[in-house]
């Protein structure tokens, strides 16, 4: 275990659109609550991304910002830290798309960083609303958040999704005839976790924050009393799942042919 958990927020002024700083604040708070020293480094373009930090955060951004950030990080030297084997990375929304091989933004096809075999195209409409997913490969409960993106992300063979979509779009139906109810969100690759969930995702899902902290520290973590976070999760899940029929209906209208 390192003496202090170092959290690096990559380019917050470009990739900090959806309260992404909140993910860093939650990690700091949960480390501090356990007496684990932790610090946050906010690295802007022009600054060097420190190698061997414990957790790297890549957030959401507008199209042009996403392209600018990708162009900067495509240099192997600048992105060496997140390319290193075993690096713990949380990538959200634009961050998710950038880690893949290709995405589309600001009217252009952009080559991603290629850390994961994932290609993002632009969907027929924007996915905006609550997103609830069930993680399938990680030992954490239902994930809740808000999504706001136009991307549809196809995962390459062997790339594990982060979760199965219960409500919302997530990675979306990349093929119009993909099987119903099989939508997934995000991906996991080694210790890279990527998702379309913001909210911020770690504020709404402290178990995911703790998983990243466990990976970073290599040890077990003391249990925290999470009354506020639990109340928030319960309120959001209740509100979202009660409107589930509405969301399902609107989703179904988009794939009526396959249901017919």
């Amino acid at each position, binding site marked *: 275990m390192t003496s202090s958990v170092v959290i690096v927020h990559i380019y917050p*002024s*470009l990739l*900090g*659109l*959806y*309260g*992404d*700083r*909140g993910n860093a*604040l*939650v990690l700091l*708070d949960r480390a501090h609550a356990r007496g684990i020293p932790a610090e946050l480094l906010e690295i*802007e*373009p*022009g600054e060097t991304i420190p190698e061997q930090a414990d957790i790297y955060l890549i957030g959401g951004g*507008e*199209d*042009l*910002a996403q*392209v*600018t950030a990708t162009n900067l990080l495509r240099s192997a030297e600048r992105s060496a830290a997140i390319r290193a084997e075993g690096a713990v990375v949380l990538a959200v929304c634009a961050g998710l798309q950038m880690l893949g091989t290709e995405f589309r933004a600001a009217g252009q096809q952009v080559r991603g960083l290629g850390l994961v075999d994932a290609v993002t195209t632009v969907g027929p409409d*924007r996915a*905006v*609303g609550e997103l609830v997913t069930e993680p399938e490969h990680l030992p954490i409960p239902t994930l809740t958040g*808000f999504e*706001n993106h136009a991307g549809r992300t196809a995962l390459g063979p062997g790339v594990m999704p982060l979760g199965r979509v219960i409500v919302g779009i997530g990675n979306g139906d990349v093929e119009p005839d993909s099987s119903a109810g099989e939508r997934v969100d995000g991906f996991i690759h080694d210790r890279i976790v990527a998702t379309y969930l*913001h*909210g*911020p995702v770690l*504020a709404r899902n402290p178990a995911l924050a703790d998983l990243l902290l466990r990976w970073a520290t290599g040890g077990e973590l003391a249990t925290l009393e999470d009354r*506020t*976070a639990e*109340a*928030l999760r319960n*309120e*959001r899940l209740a509100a979202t799942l009660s409107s589930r029929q509405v969301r399902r209906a609107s989703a179904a209208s988009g794939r009526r042919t396959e249901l017919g």
Partner: protein
Amino acid sequence: MLRQIDGRYAVSSMVLHDPHPASEHLIAFSTPLPLRSRLAVLAGKATSAVSRRLLLGRGAVIGGRVTLAVDPLVLTRLTAGRAVTVVSGTNGKTTTTLLLAEALGSTRTVSSTAGANMTAGLVTAAARPTEELVLEVDELFVARTMTTTRPTVLVLLNLSRDQLDRMVEVRRVADRWRAAIAEVTWNMTIVANADDPLVVWAVHRFPDVVWVAGGTRGRREAIQCPSCGQVAIVNAAGMWSCACGSARPSPNWTVDADHLHGPAFISPFNPSLPGEANRSNAAMAVAAAAARGVDRHAAISAVERVESVAGRYLTVPIAGRPVRMLLAKNPASWTEVLHLIDDDLRPIVICVNARGPDGRDTSWLWDVAFEGLAGRVVAACGERRWDLAMRLETAGIRCLVVQDPVDAVRAVAPAGSSVELVGTYSAFHDLLRRLHVRW
């Protein structure tokens, strides 16, 4: 105009400068209205009146919808031949609109919107037979409103992230403004904030621009150049420039701590509305009034007199506590609020909803420096109180979580003690309505 609230607080109310009561005939319009438009306006007014009688609200939107249903082209017809000023931006549009209406009102009859800033609300404002119109327009409605009303003056305040579930990207909003401005074929003056790179981008090479140093509203240090996407440089004075050549235009109007500097004049400047952002709003309003030919000293005194805007900054009694009502709906407006309450340690009630007008996504709460509330008694309330409580807790701010804002006011302070209340758009207006506060 003075109005009593609960019989105790006399406030300066932002009323429309409409000398004609709602039932007044429509003779004042310079172009005769077709029968259909007249019927449409009458139907809308009747609906608004019913809505007000039922205490459902101010009736501006529902009345406008009825008018539009009867005559879809009514906005074009109602504004034909009248001087229209359109005001838009993420923050300050209600305030600037009403300040400008006050400034213009010293010499002519003016009708303006107040918060009802999409087509239906604009129709209701335009249906009043005044000489001039000042229309607050939602950022996404600027292009179509320009086409239908052909404004004489366009006031562009600022663009920052707000209601991203609806606006999608701030940059795209700027693109839409830019496209609409490029299409302008009539005589128009733009009064624009030189400090905001996105506004400058939208104005582009428009020939008739009055630049106002309208403030940066707590913008973070690094900004992205809208022109090339690189990170632009901002110096200590808030001026920005980029390697690609884009830079802050030299302003024609600037405002400092005591004075307003305009073209070849300096005047003491003391708006009653509190805060830095409102000084900028007031400067924009005076510059726009000057563009409409109003004497600048008359304009300055008119805007200086305004003490509250659409219920904001009013102090109202709630459960026997004087409560200052503040509205904050995004990180930029919270920066203003935190500045404003900086000099007191009053208990604060924060009320957060996430309905359509608030933006359905509460992530923005994480971009607000709530750490600045340390040392106060804080209550989180509203429909999204748990999102807020989680944010506050992470900022090290302990808070009470109380569903109802009135209960929260009771909980944070003893009777007679002052309280600050900050609400998102719907939370703020719901509470005003419930308290029967008219403005």
